[in-house]
């Protein structure tokens, strides 16, 4: 029986009159990859912001490994072992790629014991892992968009999190970059065994990587299940997917 690592319960988040999240509940099991999908403005990023403590929900609770973390400050949540990437990348522009990544390591769950040398080692190995080792000494602002996304990932991985939240890491990449990034995410799952929630618009990627999928639409959770179940759910299709045949074909071809 898989252990639940994260559970969100009845989360409601409003921005003025706008109901960005409407009583949303779901869970993630340890070791799993959960896909979080839905049209633009569905509330996906907002859900990440609620989980990481950036926003306080009006209603509902967030549990991480059974512990209620609702209302905790973002830095405390990060230190518990939840790391994220940002949809709109936020590199520390004037710092080097290595420094960016070291900051991830220094302030993660091991923040009170880690030394600078250890942080540097972790950062270097993570940069090697994501393929940015040769850019380590470069100021982060000089990276291209694909590299900046990798840096977001590196910074999060350097924290050695138990749960990784990925916000559209594939958006804005060209097809060959997408392929590389998918390979990288596979590596994260297989080698680092980190639980992940990924928000993604690139459908074949989610359908392939995710064990289960949760679908948001105008702030409401309209479906959850395996990729196959979700892809054939009529409500989801109506809301979003367009062509279930296509999606299923994808799934089958790539799974083989």
């Amino acid at each position: 029986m898989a252990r639940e690592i994260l559970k969100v319960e009845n989360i409601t988040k409003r921005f003025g009159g706008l109901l960005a999240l409407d009583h949303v509940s779901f869970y993630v099991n340890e070791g799993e990859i959960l896909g979080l999908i839905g049209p633009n403005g569905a509330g996906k990023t907002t859900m990440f912001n609620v989980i990481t403590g950036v926003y306080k929900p009006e209603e509902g609770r967030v549990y991480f490994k059974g512990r209620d973390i609702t209302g905790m400050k973002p830095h405390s949540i990060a230190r518990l072992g939840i790391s994220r990437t940002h949809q709109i990348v936020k590199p520390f522009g004037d710092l080097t790629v290595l420094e960016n990544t070291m900051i991830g390591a220094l302030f993660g769950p091991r923040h009170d014991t880690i030394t600078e040398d250890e942080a540097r080692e972790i950062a270097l190995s993570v940069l090697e892992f994501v393929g940015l080792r040769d850019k380590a000494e470069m100021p982060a602002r000089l990276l291209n968009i694909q590299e900046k996304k990798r840096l977001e990932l590196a910074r999060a991985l350097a924290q050695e999190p138990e749960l990784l939240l990925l916000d559209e890491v594939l958006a804005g990449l060209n097809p060959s970059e997408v392929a590389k990034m998918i390979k990288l995410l596979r590596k994260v799952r297989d080698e680092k065994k980190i639980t992940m929630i990924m928000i993604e618009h690139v459908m074949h990627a989610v359908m392939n990587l995710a064990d289960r999928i949760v679908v948001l639409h105008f702030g409401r959770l309209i479906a959850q299940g395996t990729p196959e179940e979700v892809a054939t759910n009529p409500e989801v299709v109506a809301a979003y997917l367009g062509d279930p045949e296509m999606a299923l074909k994808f799934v089958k071809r790539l799974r083989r």
Partner: protein
Amino acid sequence: MAPGKGLMLAFTRKGFYLSLALLAVFIVIGVLFWYGRIGANIPGYAMDAMYYIGIALSMAIIMSYAGYVSFGHVVFYGVGGWTLVYTFNRLASESGVLSFLHGHSYAILVVGTLLGMALAVLLAVTVGAAVLRLRGAFFAIATIGLDYVILYLESLYATGGSDYMYIGYERFLEKTYFLYLAGLILTVLIAYIIRVSKFGYGLAAIREDEDAAEVLGVNTYRYKVQAFAIAAAMAALWGSLSSWRTSGIFPDFFSLSKSVDMIVMNVIGGLGTFNGPIIGSLIYYVIIKATQLYAKDLAYIIVGAIVIIVVSVFPEGVAGLIKSKYRQLREYLI
């Protein structure tokens, strides 16, 4: 950051060489002065330079390291100077609570300086803690307001007595020189340790993107308040030292223009580096001195033009400029 070996090694890094060289120069000047080999002119210039480096580094902790431009920083400098004078004239007077110190000028100096620093820290963690909830321009403006409030209240207080408060103890320039040197060494060490420590990385993250820093586990608010308090203590230290040197405080001890000096030195030197504010303050001192000597009328015009040019053409400042032009010097200019 774990202290000990790592920290000791940090001082052997190339980034600290400039400071070591400067300190060596100041020590040599001090020794020559002490033994009467040189007159008071050169030590006077050296003390000016130490003062500029000191206040620039105190501002750097909050402005250059953490990215918060504080126009109110002079308040802490003023508090330092004011407290020292108050300690001399009231607390350690024959009838004051510290009357047992009366007559021991150096003991009063130390106690007064520490009191001033403590008061500055207290002010920083109370008022500052509220102001530090603001960001960017709003923070800058709030600190302008803070400075004016203190300035007006102080002038109200000062008009009750004399506007120039005098320290009536005999001082020896040679000793004052070494006090400045001690202040400088302390300031440089603190700034450098912060810059290369985990705390410094956290501040850098705040400067670059505060939200991202928070989400990465940096306790941004606490770091900001701590940086503000340390910067305040350092400013108070220099306020105290310079009121000792000038034997009292003038109303301009709280004037916005000192904050301006501190800000401009950091801008010229380049934000985010340890050596930038040091280089910036030396350049600024030379400019100020030269304009005082040769073009007194043009002082503000020159400073204004420099700020505009640096901000819009070389936003990374002198240190940043050198770093990007000469990659081999990068390690020296952290």
